[in-house]
């Protein structure tokens, strides 16, 4: 990169203003994490002590070691979360890519209504539908399996994924489809060989958002539809640090940081992709 364009040259006071703004913004975003991190460093006996001291006395990373001991299955929970999120993401993509293409390309009677209906699904939180869903899961025979968490997870992530990808695909020139059609390619062939590769950045964004949505969102379904400890995902696993009398706060926080680390790393490498992929899908002027 060369030096920034002239228009983006900042005077010293503008720079101070921008960094102050960023600092303010990030303070808000990160303050709870700072608090959580400080909690994770404090010995349990010193956690509940006032007056408030920002820097923990006798702070140590002990909790980051003991968390593995007191909840031996924690690694498994992270693995489960990864597994579930990965499968959810794959299934969502399999379902959403064709539908988004159909919505982006074909106008037929009821297509607008159907799209609206998909969006309406977003209006229901899983919490409200828990009991009927439970009955359904039971009749599908997927209780207490990974699928108990995957199946409903997918359903509630489909609408926003369709919406995002459809916007992206509408920006792919229609001539590409038509050219393939003239050359004798079937619709399916066109979709697979022409549209899919071009829509890859958009698909990547959808994949990332779906993955994260499912990584953090697995709580209520996992709780109700699965009873097997070995299948539990991370959010439930974190509840293992709640004892009968005492919440082991320092280990809980340590475990949270360890648990989100993989996703943070993924985001770190993909953030540029994420922003630009969204740009392409952003509302057109």
């Amino acid at each position, binding site marked *: 990169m060369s030096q920034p364009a002239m228009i983006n040259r900042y005077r010293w006071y503008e720079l101070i203003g921008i960094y102050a703004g960023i600092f303010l913004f990030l303070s808000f975003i990160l303050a709870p994490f700072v608090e959580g991190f400080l909690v994770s460093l404090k010995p349990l*006996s010193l956690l*509940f*002590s*006032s007056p408030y001291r920002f820097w923990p006395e006798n702070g140590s990373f002990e909790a980051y070691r003991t968390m593995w001991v007191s*909840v031996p299955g924690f690694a498994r929970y992270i693995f489960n979360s990864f597994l579930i999120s990965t499968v959810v993401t794959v299934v969502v993509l399999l379902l959403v890519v064709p539908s988004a293409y159909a919505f982006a390309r074909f106008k037929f009677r009821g297509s607008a209504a159907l799209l609206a209906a998909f969006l309406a699904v977003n209006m229901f939180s899983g919490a409200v539908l*828990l*009991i009927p869903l*439970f*009955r359904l899961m*039971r009749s599908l025979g997927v*209780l207490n399996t990974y699928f108990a968490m995957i199946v409903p997870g997918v359903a509630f992530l489909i609408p926003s994924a369709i919406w995002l990808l459809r916007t992206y695909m509408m920006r792919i020139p229609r001539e590409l489809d038509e050219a393939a059609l003239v050359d004798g390619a079937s619709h399916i062939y066109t979709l697979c060989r022409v549209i899919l590769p071009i829509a890859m950045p958009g698909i990547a964004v959808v994949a990332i958002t779906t993955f994260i949505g499912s990584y953090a969102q697995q709580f209520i379904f996992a*709780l*109700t539809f699965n*009873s097997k*400890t070995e299948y539990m995902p991370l959010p*439930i696993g974190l*509840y*293992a*640090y*709640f*004892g*009968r*009398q*005492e919440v082991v706060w320092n280990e809980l926080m340590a475990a949270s940081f360890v648990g989100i680390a993989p996703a943070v790393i993924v985001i770190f490498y993909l953030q540029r992709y994420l922003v630009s992929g969204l740009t392409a899908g952003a509302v057109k002027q």
Partner: protein
Amino acid sequence: ADQEISWIYCGDKIDPIHEKYIKEWEGQNPGWKVLPEVVGWAQCQDKATTLAVAGTPVAMAYVGSRTLKEFAENELIVPVPMTEEEKKSYYPNIVDTVTFEGTQWGVPIAFSTKALYWNKDLFKQAGLDPETPPKTWAEEIAFAKQIKEKTGIAGYGLPAKTFDNTMHQFMHWVYTNNGKVIDGDEIVMDSPEVLAALQAYKDIMPYSVEGATAYEQNEIRAIFLDGKAGMIQSGSGAAALLKDTKIDWGIAPLPLGPSAKGEGTLLITDSLAIFKDSGVEEKAIEFAKFITSPGPQGEYELQGGAGLTPLRPSPKVDEFVKADPSWKPLIDGIAYGGPEPLFRDYRGFQNAMIEMVQSVVTGKAEPTDALKKAAGELEQYK
């Protein structure tokens, strides 16, 4: 294959003592297996209910005894009658917590009572006699006032969060003033005794920890452990935790209200409920009685730190109390204790009580009005 008894077990992991006795029972009953499913405290009762409602009940679940009536009325659980002998083995009043319509609906497995803890250092600082705990509400309020005014530190810790134990804490006050919420099928809450309790809440608020409605009892306990509250009412767990702090503390029976006829406390038990239609009800009852029989239960509840009070008298308990006199007020109170009121819709009852307490401690309503309103609401839940 083996027959299975599924058990929703609240907590983070199975207690080693339970684990040991499950093995033992399985050894004695070949062909049977006990399958505990560990569910966090916050969700385990809801989960048991959801499973039962959805038609796939577990064989057995750990529930608050106060829910037994609701479950029974909706035919979700089966009765677990006790023999006279069994009843006798418990401390007095305990069996009442799982009894209605003349039969028992669960096997008590956990039990707690409360006593007053006070911080002798703060008493000293405030010019109070560190060795004299308050005996009455009036004293309690006066001491709290003195502590607050002399030291600037809260004299009392009152929990009033939107949480089940807000109702429990209040029931302790009701029972130490000879009050009652429900008598048979009649709501008798709108009485001078209960009103006095509510008024006492209002009176002690100014000297209590700021923001009562933000804390439940464990959070208040943490504040006490930090030396930032003069007095709290709490269970056995606090004693265990206090031993690790530098605080000089004492424990005494709960102070009494003006109408008290004698000591009093609320007896809270959790029980093992046996769900209907699991197909293994008989065997589940058998197991439930085994795991709560004096041997295993005694070992379980006296581990200390778990915050439990023993369910049954035994030489072991006497020994224990001798070794650690702080247990004495907790166990002595049992004799005067009353059960949690049993409602058909206990959640409705609990919410009404919490709302009543909160409206008084936040100054939103006068005790008289709040009480009248709550008493009216309770009618629909009985």
